[in-house]
């Protein structure tokens, strides 16, 4: 009993000893700008004692600790703070200034010129789901990109026509390496789709100028695509549509460390063309066979090895009236084979170093035959101009093999450097036969080295400084360029950026065949950008000036004396907030450009450049109907067109006619119906897609073509005003209900 009392006494005295030595610690927490920091945790290291700062940054607590102790302060978004203090029982007042943490969420991002849109980045502008739900795009990535500012509504030729640049001046990269034949092979006056499905990619960076030193050989812009890592689940899929059939399978192992899969699709436009009349006569209806295979392997916790390969075979033949004679027809036939493979590996070597190795191989074969036919569709051989050069055979075989390595070193904060090198081997074998047979083989060993640094001066000021050195064995010339951009944060969400860079591009292979002594073409970009981004709204304003030098002229001789400029202002606004369940974006581009290149007699606004271009894209999910409705409207003012004829006297092309096409309008609507949503036990996920391009059946006229003598002028129009699509896509074995529901919460 006594012992127990003693014990109690001891306990109480021990406790009181603690209580007697309490020290009160208080103060105010501020950031470097002197503003209060609320919600921070202040405490004594190794003890429970502490407090949380209030909305005015004040804190107060009592501690039983004594002697030499360490005060710690931690707060989301700030660097942790520690200080040794002496606790003696008398009150302490400690006002502390905290340093903001350099974090990707808070720091400025260098964005001038580029639209970053990945599913992994939390603030996105346009992701893969956006691509497939953009009404005018028909699930084609570049068609969706055409609703962003800086791009032209060119419908007679594939490619992205960016800021006064031609389609050839924009390049596409998949997992770091250049894609040589991104689009299906060109057909006269009909733009072709991209060969790659948007579902392959998790991230899209669309740069309309001033892009990173890691990429090159594109005068105006780059579309940088990053393939997905692991699929979400194993699944089989099947699709039936008005233009074809598709099937696919994807297997993911239990540990989610390895997956493999493949798919096959067959597209044939015969039934569609039977229903919807086309302006041109297809004697071989377009038919496409696409097969692909992939595997993805998590080689370690941080390592990822990915392979994607595709084989495509397609053909088409079309007949149209010959512009030089009412009695004749032009018959164009194309057979295309394309193989593409991409293997890449990335690994975090340690806390500081990351390694990326990418490689790709592609081979493309275009077999083109153009005939002059009579009204009975029989081939005619006419040995006079212009018909004698209109009948031709062309066999173009091209391959590109490349490897690229990038090493990245991370430093404190967000500062990092990247450097690496790439090697590309181009091999082209072109046979062309009209009146005489020409056979050319051109090889180019192209090497580049690059380095780039992301420097964060403060959280509010960042710079991206890069440089690139390139050498082409074919041109036997090297070039060296700087790329610089700066970003400065204005207030909470806004930021301003500036970008400058020089970009070189090889002349086209068809030009190099004629004159291998041509030099690089060159463009300099100057970009100023303002943007304000929240989770639900994006506002971007951008102004640019672009200077073209050394463009290729084809008359009177092949030379590099071409030049030009482009300047403009662009606006982008995306809003998911104002109207409930509605997501919309608006783009507007103003463009002023002139160039003297190819056969132009003097500097002209090229026929692919409209002064004003605007797009409105709207998406709305109607819950009760289990239906998403998407609409888009694109508008462009008329583009210039030119009638030019070679004049032997001046050895130049002379202008004999010019004008402007009517303005371009396109309203498209698509509807996605998801009937299995909410059926909890359903193992089949169904999506119905219905889309109509050019709902109002507005006349679209892209350009004019002229007869050889210049007397006849024919409009260049799409093969049909409208395009209708209906399809049903099923995936089995996976309940995706939860995903779809969550997307509409």
């Amino acid at each position, binding site marked *: 009993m006594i012992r127990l009392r003693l014990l109690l006494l001891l306990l109480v005295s021990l406790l009181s000893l603690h209580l007697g030595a309490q020290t009160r610690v208080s103060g105010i927490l501020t950031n470097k700008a002197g503003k209060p920091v609320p919600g921070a945790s202040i405490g004594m290291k190794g003890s429970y004692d502490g407090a949380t700062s209030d909305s005015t940054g004040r804190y107060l607590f009592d501690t039983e600790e004594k002697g030499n102790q360490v005060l710690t302060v931690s707060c989301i978004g700030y660097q942790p703070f520690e200080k040794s203090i002496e606790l003696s029982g008398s009150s302490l007042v400690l006002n502390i200034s905290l340093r903001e943490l350099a*974090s990707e969420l808070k720091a400025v991002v260098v964005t001038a010129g580029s639209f970053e849109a990945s599913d992994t980045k939390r603030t996105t502008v346009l992701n893969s789901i956006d691509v497939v739900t953009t009404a005018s795009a028909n699930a084609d990535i570049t068609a969706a990109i055409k609703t962003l500012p800086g791009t032209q509504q060119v419908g007679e030729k594939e490619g992205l026509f960016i800021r006064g640049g031609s389609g050839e001046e924009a390049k596409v990269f998949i997992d770091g390496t250049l894609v040589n034949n991104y689009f299906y092979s060109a057909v006269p006056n009909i733009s072709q789709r991209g060969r790659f499905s948007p579902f392959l990619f998790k991230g899209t960076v669309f740069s309309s100028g001033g892009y990173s030193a890691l990429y090159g050989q594109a005068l105006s812009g780059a579309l940088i695509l990053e393939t997905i890592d692991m699929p979400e689940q194993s699944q089989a899929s099947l699709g039936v549509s008005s233009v074809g059939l598709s099937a696919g399978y994807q297997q993911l192992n239990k540990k989610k460390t390895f997956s493999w899969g493949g798919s096959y699709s067959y597209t044939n436009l015969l039934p569609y063309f039977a229903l919807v009349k086309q302006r041109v006569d297809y004697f071989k209806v377009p038919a496409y066979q696409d097969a692909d295979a992939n595997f993805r392997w998590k080689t370690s916790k941080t390592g990822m090895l990915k392979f994607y390969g595709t084989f495509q075979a397609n053909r088409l033949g079309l007949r149209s009236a010959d512009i030089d004679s009412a009695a004749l027809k032009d018959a164009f036939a194309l057979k295309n084979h394309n193989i593409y493979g991409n293997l890449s590996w990335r690994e975090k070597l340690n806390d500081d170093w990351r390694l990326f190795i990418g490689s790709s191989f592609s081979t493309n074969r275009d077999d083109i035959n153009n005939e002059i036919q009579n009204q009975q569709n029989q081939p005619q051989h006419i040995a006079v101009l212009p018909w004698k050069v209109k009948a031709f055979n062309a066999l173009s075989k091209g391959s590109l093999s490349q490897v690229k390595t990038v090493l990245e070193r991370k430093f404190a904060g967000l500062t990092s450097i990247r450097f690496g090198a790439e090697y590309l081997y181009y091999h082209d074998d072109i046979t062309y036969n009209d009146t005489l047979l020409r056979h050319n083989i051109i090889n180019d060993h192209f090497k580049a080295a690059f380095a780039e640094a992301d420097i964060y001066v403060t959280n509010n000021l960042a710079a991206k400084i890069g440089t690139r050195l390139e050498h082409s064995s074919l041109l036997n010339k090297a070039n060296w360029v700087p790329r610089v951009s700066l970003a400065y944060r204005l207030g909470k969400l806004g930021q301003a950026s500036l970008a400058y860079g020089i970009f070189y591009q090889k002349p086209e292979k068809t030009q190099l065949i004629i004159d291998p002594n041509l030099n690089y073409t060159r463009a300099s970009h100057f970009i100023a950008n303002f943007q304000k981004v929240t*989770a*639900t709204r994006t506002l971007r304003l951008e102004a640019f000036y672009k200077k073209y030098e050394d463009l290729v002229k084809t008359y009177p001789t092949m030379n590099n004396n071409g030049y030009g400029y482009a300047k403009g202002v662009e606006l982008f606004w995306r809003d*998911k907030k104002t109207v409930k369940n509605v997501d919309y974006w608006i783009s507007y581009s103003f463009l002023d450009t002139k160039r003297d290149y190819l056969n132009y007699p003097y500097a002209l606004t090229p026929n692919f450049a409209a002064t004003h271009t605007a797009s409105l894209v709207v998406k709305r999910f109607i*819950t009760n109907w289990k239906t998403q409705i998407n609409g888009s409207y694109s508008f462009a003012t008329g583009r210039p067109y030119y009638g030019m004829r070679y004049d032997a006297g001046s050895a130049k092309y002379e202008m004999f006619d010019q004008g402007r096409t009517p303005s371009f309008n396109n309203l498209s609507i698509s509807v996605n119906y998801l009937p299995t949503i909410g059926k909890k036990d359903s193992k089949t996920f169904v999506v119905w897609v219905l889309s109509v391009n050019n709902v109002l059946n507005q006349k679209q006229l892209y350009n004019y073509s002229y007869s050889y003598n210049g007397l006849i002028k024919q409009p260049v129009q799409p093969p049909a005003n409208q395009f209708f699509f209906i399809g049903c896509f099923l995936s089995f074995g996976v309940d995706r209900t939860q995903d779809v529901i969550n997307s509409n919460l």
Partner: protein
Amino acid sequence: MKKTVLFFAFGLLALSGFAQSAKYDAAMQAQIAKLATAHTDNSYPALANSFERIGDAEKTQWLPYYYAAYATVMGAFMEKDPSKVDAVADKAETLINKAESLAGSPNSELYVVKSMIATAHLQVDPQSRWQQYGQVSAENIAKAKQADPTNPRPVYLEAQSSFFTPEAFGGGKKVAKPIFEKALAMFPAFKPAGALYPTWGKEATEYFLSQCQ
């Protein structure tokens, strides 16, 4: 004499150990009690800080970090500025990872908080984030149920998810109600592994059930 000294020394040692554990229990109980009313004045961030300090001082206990993560993610749900939510949810994730490494292996309660963290990220921009976070949230609910079929909290989260899902998608109050009822019935039967182990969720389940009428 020697024996007495030895006895005294051992006794003191035992006492100090007991005092430390009593202090831990008392501090934890006090903070856990405050969690019940934290939604009224959003004192979640302050509670999260308190739990984290206890965790940092104790070094070997997973429950303080568990509660710190729970209070942090609750704070994320109450955050009105969506641009701040991600950083808060990231903080909750760091804390739950600390809890998991101290617990040695994942358990049902850890999965529950992980599901909530994913939901917090998802709610910032549901349309573009469902692919990534919707699945993570659902997966963790499933894992929580699997790890402990008697735990009512994953059932409560599942019911809540149905509650906020439109009827056309197979959700709504009618669908949610029986799941809430199931969760409610599980609460009295649920036996926490210790005095400080999580028991939260009953009041919220009752509240949602009243909204289902």
